[in-house]
């Protein structure tokens, strides 16, 4: 069920790997040196060998244009734009993380911005995904992007006055007192909850528009002709059964047809990135559970891998296989929930009950291992919280043996169902080039025909040793996304079976007690272990100075963890490139011109989780 027709199968994208060679010998770095010479301020390598090129901020657009458009470079996927504030008045750094599908290469372009000139040219003409990414950087850091079509706050409320939260001079609890924050929150009025364009659509002229209007235009001109009739402006959410969380869509409707859709997010903004700067490296792990709460161990594992790459340590073979098993179990967990809620949104309520029953069985495995169903916090830097309990492996094996029966039943219910097909086929279509430009990753991208899976392109945790296929769709509509995810569950079952067969014995944590706590029996007995235990608990783990942008294939797409360490016990910057945040940016593209019923089908098919979108 991997290909629909007999067309040539799309090329599986394999990365060329970072060999640890000198970054100056990297093909893109030499090309940049040749074309831009002195604009390149610095060339370095990050903790996993990706070349980092620091450039003159005034030439950022030209350099990125070259990197995207030049045939030999072809960096068509903009994976992330993030900013780093090192504090103490130092310049802010803006990272552009790039990936080339054609060459299988990663590159990072960094611009250093002095605090008095926090602005950059926008790159939205090059990549559509930069729209929301730049809005987020503006919202959290105050960096303006010249030429951005709609530069306004995205995660914080529109009229947020306390400042830019992720700056180092912004206190963790905000500038105002709690009672003042509560008072302001509840006093928010009409003008504060709608964007300018939406107010204009409804014919309401806000004071801001009046204040900013050119002197010779009358406010009354903003209203349309009353005889023409106005399209209906409808709020879908934030409290809505079918938006998969606190997502708000402001739809402009002409009857049932959508004229425009403006997503508003930030209703679940929890300040993860800021809070994690105040937590020790291992204390961040429980926070990673709560972002993608549908498949939490994937976040735990991605974060632990990122920190381990900064430390430069290799985890034990047993830990590597256990992490693969848990990753794939959580991928199934996330996909099963997606399946259940999508079917529920479209009316097939039985599937919800079936998939939740299967998820309960995975929760039993979570609980047997970690004690918690939904927020396992299972990894620690250098290993896991503990080894697998006795009988767990049999439980996992039993699960993967019986899951295909339920999958077959859901398959019988949905795949050839006339209603399912007519609601999902040819709805929410996106082609491969648009998908890459919007930064889509994961099943969304693969359903559009691009065979990019981080497990195959940049294998981690030994994925190159497992045999599994990557399902790729063809039409890029909702039905293809459904088929791709369904097949991915089967492939995950395959990987788990192989992993269970090859699970080696041995320790689960590495032996280095400056990273991992020694076993309690030793800590109470031997003096070295006691000292190591004391240092780790009182001081915290110290991670050497460095930076990394580490990504894995999460259930929703490419999950990137951007870490900056200054050698201390807490991260200086802890960035989570959430796949759903980027995937959601494509929603207006998918549904403008469609009917209201298709909004829900398209929204469900992108598989979003608001916890990681809003962070």
């Amino acid at each position, binding site marked *: 069920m991997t290909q629909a027709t007999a067309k040539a199968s799309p090329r599986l994208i394999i990365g060329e790997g970072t060999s640890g060679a000198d970054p100056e010998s990297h093909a893109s770095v030499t090309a940049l040196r040749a074309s831009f010479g002195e604009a390149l301020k610095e060339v370095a390598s990050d903790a996993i060998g990706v070349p980092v090129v620091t450039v003159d901020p005034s030439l950022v657009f030209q350099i990125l244009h070259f990197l995207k458009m030049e045939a030999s470079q072809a960096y068509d996927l903009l994976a992330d734009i993030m900013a780093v504030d090192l504090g103490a008045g130092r310049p802010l750094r803006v990272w552009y993380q790039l990936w080339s599908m054609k060459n299988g290469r990663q590159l990072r372009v960094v611009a250093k911005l002095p605090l008095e000139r926090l602005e950059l040219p926008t790159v939205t003409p090059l990549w559509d995904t930069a729209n929301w990414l730049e809005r987020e950087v503006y919202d959290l850091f105050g960096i303006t992007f010249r030429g951005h079509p709609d530069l306004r706050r995205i995660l914080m409320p529109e009229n947020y006055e306390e400042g830019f939260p992720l700056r180092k001079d912004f206190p963790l609890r905000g500038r105002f007192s709690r009672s003042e924050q509560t008072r302001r929150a509840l006093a928010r009025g009409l003008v504060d*909850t709608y964007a300018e364009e939406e107010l204009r659509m409804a014919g309401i002229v806000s004071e801001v528009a009046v204040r900013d209007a050119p002197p010779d235009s009358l406010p009354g001109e903003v209203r349309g002709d009353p005889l023409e009739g106005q399209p209906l402006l409808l709020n879908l959410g934030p409290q809505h059964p079918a938006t998969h969380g606190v997502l708000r869509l402001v739809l402009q409707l002409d009857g049932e047809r959508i004229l425009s859709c403006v997503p508003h997010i930030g209703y679940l903004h929890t300040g993860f990135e800021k809070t994690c700067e105040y937590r020790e490296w291992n204390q961040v792990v429980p926070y990673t559970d709560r972002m993608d709460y549908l498949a939490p161990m994937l976040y735990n594992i991605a974060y632990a891998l990122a920190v381990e790459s900064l430390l430069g340590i290799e985890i034990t073979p047993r830990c590597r296989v256990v992490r693969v098993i848990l990753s794939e179990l959580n991928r199934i967990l996330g996909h099963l929930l997606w399946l259940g809620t999508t079917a529920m949104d479209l009316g097939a309520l039985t599937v919800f009950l079936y998939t939740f029953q299967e998820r309960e069985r995975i929760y039993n495995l979570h609980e047997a291992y970690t004690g918690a169903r939904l927020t396992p916090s299972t990894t620690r830097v250098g290993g896991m919280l503990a080894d697998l309990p006795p009988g767990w492996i049999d439980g996992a094996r039993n699960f993967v043996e019986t899951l295909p029966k339920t999958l077959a039943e859901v398959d019988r219910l949905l795949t050839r169902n006339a209603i399912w097909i007519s609601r999902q086929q040819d709805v929410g279509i996106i082609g491969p080039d648009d998908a890459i430009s919007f930064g889509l990753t994961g099943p969304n991208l693969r359903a559009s025909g691009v065979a990019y899976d981080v497990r195959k392109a940049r294998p981690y945790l030994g994925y190159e040793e497992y045999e599994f296929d990557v399902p790729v769709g063809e039409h890029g509509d909702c039905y293809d996304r459904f088929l791709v995810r369904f097949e991915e569950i089967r492939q995950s079952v395959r990987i788990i079976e192989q992993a269970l067969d090859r699970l080696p014995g041995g320790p689960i944590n590495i032996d280095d007690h400056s990273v991992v706590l020694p076993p309690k029996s030793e800590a109470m007995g031997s003096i070295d272990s006691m000292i190591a235990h004391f240092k780790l608990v009182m001081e915290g783990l110290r991670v050497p100075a460095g930076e990394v942008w580490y990504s894995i294939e999460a259930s929703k797409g490419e999950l990137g963890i951007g870490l900056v360490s200054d050698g201390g016990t807490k991260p200086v910057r802890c960035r989570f490139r959430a796949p759903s945040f980027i995937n959601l940016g494509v929603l207006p593209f998918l549904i403008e011109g469609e*009917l209201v019923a298709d909004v829900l089908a398209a929204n469900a098919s992108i598989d979003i989780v608001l916890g990681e979108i809003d962070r």
Partner: protein
Amino acid sequence: MTDSYLGIVILGFLGILNAVLIIGLGQMIGAVRPTAVKSSPYESGMTPLGGTRERLSVNFYIVGILFIVFDIETIFLLPWAVVFRDLPLSGFVAMLVFLAVLGVGLAYAWKKGALEWD
């Protein structure tokens, strides 16, 4: 003859009694304390933007009318199906004529694109 109608009369009476009781009792002993916010329209917790007396698309009315017509047709089909075996051939032909008339209407609507939105 009165026997066959007695059932329907009792059903009708109980139905009306039920409705009167539910609405009447609710009005009499239920508390009604309207406040401005309780009477305000619910739109997922946001303040609604734009008026409510907008001009709606006429397609909604077309869909509604088509639904009513074919729903009533179904309602007529049901009692006919119950007594079908006891009817002579003319009963069958009468219903076929009825279906044909409505079928022509359906074909006309289909051809004119009334079943598509837009």
